[in-house]
């Protein structure tokens, strides 16, 4: 595992180079100027290309859990960033930072995740590592 323990705000502070123009699809659907942070419980790490999706329950209106889908990068970028299909498992309590969908739907672009052991990583590897782009 190349995932490093580091401070959480590093990812949100824009230290990661993300050349969106090389991504798999347009990121215009996400509000890239807004980063939301929430505690979450993992339901499923959908380990598929072209993009892996992290499905989590987050507190909704009135505290009722609500299912959210957070888009990560492709499997290759994640693996090169130190992820595996076992990086999170169902039931893990994590903290996620993400750019929400502009549509208001319960989805977003994953910016970083704090794993149960406190490790912080991003879809491109440790914050500041300058990994490859999303697809």
């Amino acid at each position, binding site marked *: 595992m190349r995932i490093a323990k580091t401070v959480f705000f590093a990812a949100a502070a824009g230290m990661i180079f993300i050349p*969106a*123009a*090389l991504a798999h*699809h*347009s990121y215009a659907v*996400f509000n890239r100027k807004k980063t939301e942070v929430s505690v979450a419980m993992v339901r499923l790490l959908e380990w*598929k290309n072209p993009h892996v999706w992290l*499905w989590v329950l987050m507190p909704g209106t009135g505290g009722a859990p609500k299912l959210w889908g957070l888009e990560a990068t492709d499997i*290759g970028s994640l693996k090169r960033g130190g992820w595996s299909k076992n990086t999170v498992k169902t039931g893990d309590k994590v903290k996620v930072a993400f750019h929400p969908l502009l549509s208001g739907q319960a989805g977003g672009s994953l910016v970083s995740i704090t794993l149960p052991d406190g490790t912080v990583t991003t879809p491109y590897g440790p914050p500041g590592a300058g990994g490859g782009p999303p697809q």
Partner: protein
Amino acid sequence: MFQSSASRWCIAVGFIIALGPVRADDQIPANHWPGEQGLTWASIAKLPNWRGLWYPDPKSFRESDQAISNPKHTPYSAPLTPKWEAYRLAHAAAPGGFPANASKANAALCLPDGMPALMQAPHGFEFFYAPGRVAIVAENGEVRHIYTDAGAHPDDPDDTWEGDSIGHWEGDTLVVDTIAIKPVAEIFMGLPNASDKTHVVERIHLNAQKEIQVDTVVTNPDEFTKPFAYTRTWQSEPGRAVEYVCLEGNRATPSGTIDLTPPAGL
């Protein structure tokens, strides 16, 4: 290996005689460049060892990104004709610094990048040699077949996503000449080939930093005001190739939205 001038002359005469409306593969003149050309297994053993996986380095990603999405002219910009520069700018200005037409880009539709975009795509690449052949295999499943035993392209080849590629070795450098690229294939993400007149010449070698360096010159009078020359570098990547099947889980839709249907059971 060097040919005598007499044999070269005979080959040239044979070539001229053989020319016709359709040229069979066995009538294509052979590669007669000097030095090791990889036409036999013994010759392949003397070619540069590029074994393993290669992945575009951060510098290459940055320069590709600049070429695609920077609204300003940069040293990495393509010398596009006014028509195609207007097209690029219209899309480069989209929110997120992403081409506005990206939902129609080949990658979002799970179509091949094609040439020359493939060579700057964020995938791992491997080289494979066989007598008279070099294959470049990308993790997204696209394969370039480079014919190193041919001295010319076929007459009137069909247009394809990767084009028709012939290659030869100049010492430790593989020189690849590619034509007959489908216009739907992309120059880079969101920018198609303007016509089937695109001509790509690549010089590929292992540089002093032990990276695969691809010096590329792209020409097409319908798209560029002068040759678009750029260099991309690929760093050695440990591990095995990662399978990439785009259609398996593509949630990007042609209208640009995201399909948020949860997986079964959630």
